[in-house]
């Protein structure tokens, strides 16, 4: 039946030919870890595929003998003869890491044309090796901060949580850690991300042309895959830095079948700062930690399973307590039915929570806890129908629990007995379901199309309350709550349905260039409530309710991709995009988002639009590697009662963004890197006039213009030098421990970039700029491996 359905859907499958399949897994010879994105091509057949996240590939070819070529950056090329005259062949390949970095030039004397040949557009994949080359803040490699140097990606400022993609809010990025969504990607207010780079295998950011298997967020998918532990032998790595230390160990559980990786980090600035803190601050504690683990087990040839989990927390205590963090868990079972069909079933749990308060058990003590929790199941199938069609289909179901505030307040009576007053807010629940199907189809040898459809359903469910809201007295007042109705567990309060079509096409121009175009519609059912200049860990997520409609985005993108250079080693691309967003949230001026069950009454709704052009040049091979990008864009929002109902720039609108990340291999052991960023300043709303009433100063913006000024432009230059440790000792024996030293200088020319600018009224009114980083930040980090 399933086959019949596929046949009906994809008539091209009907073309019968005598063909056989070569398939298998490509892995690292050293640690047995599967390699993602290996370019597997059949010489003389003009066909190629890329290994998936489990290292799988499958090539179906007309009966013949072929030379199958395996290419992967940083690894030696492998060519294997395969006889496909009579039957399907299983071919597992192990690739060996190149002896030294300097040999890269020779090894890449081959076509590196994935940029122009693959259907993917608006996406960038970074290997951990590339991320490690970006000079890092305090010498610590960071995934989200590296992502921020890619075209189309910006941030509100240094020290702001999250990132913005093509005019999307920080909550519009689906950040996946081994399939589990991560609600807050930041440690230390955004200076570091929650991902421990030692445990990460690959990072892929998709900004457009999003395939149908992904949904639930409008703007991007940041897919972070964790490493699998070394299945051959016990190894480890780690680092000692200025702000935190890391340790990761990998061990086989059952040799070549099962392994474990454990990775942990903890910051110790509080320990180092202790001697300098006195008086009120002597009890100050602030730190973060995270712990990442992945266990995988290859049950047999056909069944593989892994578990991965993350727990992390940031904590600040200084007479008060304030901590926040994520917890995620994923169980994923991969089943291979045959050479052409396999499935993945994922069970996912994710939680974000914060706790804030003072004097938890004492008189006057106060504590508030906020949570977002989700439980999800996602079975999906991939079917390599034939050499022209790869079909993916599946379903996903997610239950969300929102606890905006579990609040307690302690009061003592005259006898000193403490009692607790509960003023918690009501929980809300949501249930999101999706069914998706997509096909990647080679129309001709050259033209490839990817098309799919995602049907999503969302129900605002009980237990909870439905609020019916009336009009506002004036445009700046809360809506009146007319009626409240209580619903029981899983009772449906409001349903929403959306069809989300996805489409991409690649048309080659010549052997070195191609044109790609894509359209996608995305629906998002959760909303981050934040009306401050920068997002904070306290911002709460809200479900879609009867009053808050799902956010929708339609994005069109067109790009031209061309490779240059002797070995096509320089990738270039130009992409333009236009995005239209619906049901975007705005706030009345006095909106109360915390401690308020009726926050929906304080919300406004409007539409957004974002458009821009992205220019990208990337060089992956040779002594000099890195990328340069420039983005010209505009991001606007229109809400009826704000800015006189006209479009105004979003708070993360940055019209010009220029970046480069360059690395130069000076010698076999020394590598130099440099990173530069330039952003137009973000907009802010300033009052233009002032006056006094009852001796109290007030500010006035008579034209009601919103985001009518900009903070000064942001720019910064960072450099780093890495000294790689020797792998062999003087006698020529392999050392058990090798170490690299990383010397970095952040903000080399001591630019004081504005995080925000505020107006100081008074006798001599002024605009005051606040910079979070006001100096050069040098750092030394020692990284080791054993």
């Amino acid at each position: 039946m399933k086959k019949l359905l596929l046949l009906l859907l994809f008539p091209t499958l009907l073309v019968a030919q005598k063909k056989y399949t070569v398939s298998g897994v490509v892995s690292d010879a050293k640690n047995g870890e599967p390699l993602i994105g290996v370019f597997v091509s059949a010489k003389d057949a003009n066909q190629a595929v890329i290994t998936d996240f489990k290292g799988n590939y499958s090539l179906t070819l007309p009966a013949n003998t072929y030379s199958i070529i395996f290419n992967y950056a940083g690894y030696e090329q492998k060519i294997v003869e395969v006889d496909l005259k009579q039957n399907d062949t299983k071919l597992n390949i192990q690739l060996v890491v190149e002896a030294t970095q300097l040999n890269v030039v020779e090894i890449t004397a081959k076509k590196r044309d994935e940029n122009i040949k693959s259907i993917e557009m608006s996406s960038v994949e970074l290997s951990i090796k590339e991320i490690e080359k970006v000079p890092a803040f305090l010498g610590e490699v960071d995934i989200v901060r590296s992502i921020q140097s890619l075209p189309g990606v910006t941030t509100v400022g240094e020290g702001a949580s999250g990132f913005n993609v093509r005019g999307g809010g920080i909550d519009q990025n689906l950040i996946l850690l081994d399939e589990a969504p991560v609600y807050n990607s930041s440690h230390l207010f955004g200076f570091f991300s929650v991902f421990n780079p030692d445990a990460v295998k690959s990072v892929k950011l998709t900004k457009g042309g999003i395939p149908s298997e992904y949904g639930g967020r409008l703007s991007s998918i940041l897919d972070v895959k964790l490493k699998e532990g070394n299945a051959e032998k016990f190894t480890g790595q780690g680092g000692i830095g200025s702000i935190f230390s890391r340790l990761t160990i990998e061990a086989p559980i059952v040799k070549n079948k099962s392994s474990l990786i454990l990775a942990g980090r903890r910051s110790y600035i509080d320990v180092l700062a202790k001697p300098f803190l006195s008086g009120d601050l002597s009890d100050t504690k602030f730190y973060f930690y995270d712990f990442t683990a992945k266990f995988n087990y290859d049950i047999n040839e056909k069944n593989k399973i892994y578990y991965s989990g993350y727990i992390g927390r940031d904590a600040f205590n200084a007479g008060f307590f304030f901590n926040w963090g994520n917890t995620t868990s994923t169980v994923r079972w991969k089943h291979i039915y045959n050479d052409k069909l396999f499935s993945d079933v994922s069970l996912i749990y994710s939680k974000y929570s914060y706790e804030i308060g003072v004097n938890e058990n004492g008189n006057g003590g106060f504590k508030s806890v906020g949570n977002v929790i989700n439980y999800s199941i996602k079975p999906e199938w991939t079917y390599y129908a034939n050499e022209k069609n790869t079909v993916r289909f599946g379903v996903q179901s997610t239950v969300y629990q929102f606890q905006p505030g579990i609040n307690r307040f302690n009061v003592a009576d005259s006898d000193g007995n403490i009692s607790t007053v509960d003023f918690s807010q009501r929980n809300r629940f949501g249930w999101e379901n999706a069914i998706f199907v997509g096909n990647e189809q080679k129309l001709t040898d050259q033209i490839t199309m990817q098309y799919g459809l995602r049907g999503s359903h969302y129900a605002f469910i009980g237990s909870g309350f439905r609020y019916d809201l009336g009009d506002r007295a004036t445009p700046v007042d809360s809506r009146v709550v007319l009626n409240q109705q209580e619903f029981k567990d899983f009772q449906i309060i409001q349903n929403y349905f959306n069809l989300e079509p996805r489409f991409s096409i690649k048309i080659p121009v010549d052997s070195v260039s191609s044109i790609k175009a894509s359209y996608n519609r995305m629906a998002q059912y959760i909303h981050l409530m934040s009306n401050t200049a920068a997002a904070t860990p306290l911002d709460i997520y809200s479900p879609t309710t009867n009053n808050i409609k799902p956010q929708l985005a339609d994005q069109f993108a067109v790009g031209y991709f061309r490779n240059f250079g002797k070995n096509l080693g320089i990738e270039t691309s130009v992409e333009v995009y236009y995005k239209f967003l619906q049901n975007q949230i705005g706030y009345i001026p006095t909106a109360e988002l915390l401690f308020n069950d009726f926050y929906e009454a304080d919300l406004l709704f409007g539409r957004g639009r974002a458009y821009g052009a992205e220019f990208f040049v990337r060089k992956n091979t040779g002594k000099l590697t890195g990328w340069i990008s420039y983005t010209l864009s505009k991001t606007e929002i229109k809400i009826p009662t704000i800015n006189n109902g006209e479009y105004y720039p979003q708070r993360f609108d940055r019209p010009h963004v220029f970046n480069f990340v360059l690395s130069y291999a000076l010698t076999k052991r020394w590598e130099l890197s440099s990173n530069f960023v330039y952003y137009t300043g973000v907009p802010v709303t300033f009052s233009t006039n002032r006056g006094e009433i009852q001796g109290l100063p007030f500010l006035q913006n008579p034209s009601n213009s919103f985001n009518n000024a900009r903070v000064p432009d942001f720019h910064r230059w960072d450099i780093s030098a890495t000294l790689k440790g020797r792998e062999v000792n003087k006698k020529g024996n392999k050392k058990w421990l090798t170490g690299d030293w990383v010397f970095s200088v952040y903000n080399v020319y001591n630019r004081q970039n504005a995080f925000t600018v505020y107006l100081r009224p008074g006798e001599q009114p002024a605009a005051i700029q606040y910079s979070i980083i006001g100096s050069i930040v040098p750092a030394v980090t020692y990284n080791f491996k054993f």
Partner: protein
Amino acid sequence: MKKIFLTSIVLFSVLFLASCEKEITIDIENGENQLVIDAFLNDKLDTQMIQLTQTKPFFGKALPIFIDDAVVKLEDNLGNTYNFNYYKEGKYIWVPSTEALIIGGRTYDLTVQYNGQTYTAQSYANFVPQIDSINYQKVGSPFGGDSSYIAEMVVVDLPGQPDYYWVKTTINDTLQNTSDDLVISVDGAFNEQSNNDGRPFIVPIAANFGLRENDVIIKEVWSINPETRRFFTELQNQSIEGALGALFATPIANVRTNIVSSSSDPKLKAIGWFSVSLTSIATQKLIFNPSKRVSFSTF
């Protein structure tokens, strides 16, 4: 709660990243200056005053612009009219003789005629409870150093519907009058949900800390309307406490006005607030007296 968050980021950034502030120039278009009507009238037998000024550009040292050629008139719902005469610095005054200008339970209409335009506003005079007394007590300082005084006014909220009060404090002839000092109360507590109807004012509203021996403290309670409370809340929201306040502050919004302009042209619109109040007042000099105590336990 926001303070906790701000303190966290301050600690982190100041201690480790050498965060800094500096004055910069910002490119911004000037907006239109508008007429500001500042009309808070009460039942005291002091001179009643309404001030008319204009807003001025945010930057620069423009001198205040006083409006001296307006016609300012007050009328109550019984038909009594009161003409305010120009005094100086944009101030229009009415001097009560033996009877107060504002009487509880009456509705007042303000009319200002200026520059060919008519501006009107309306306000209702709510009642106010009497301050019984001011208690005080000498206390040690929790942070060491000299001891200080705590003063607490004893006043009970009027029972029934929510009552809105503006609590003003004068210490040694200086009115405590910054946005931070502004105390607006509902039923003697913070808001309508506090369930304090008909009960004594709660400590954070009624008490003043850190006073010195021989200080003279004057406490006043003014009855206001819920709209006036919102006006003050919005005014307070505009004041940003330093850079980190700005970071996590919401964009500055205009404060509301209850002045109705005859023209919808923004250039001709007036802003400001009209409010009528009944007041109660108590004065206390802080002279050491061990028998005087405040109602709540101290450190």
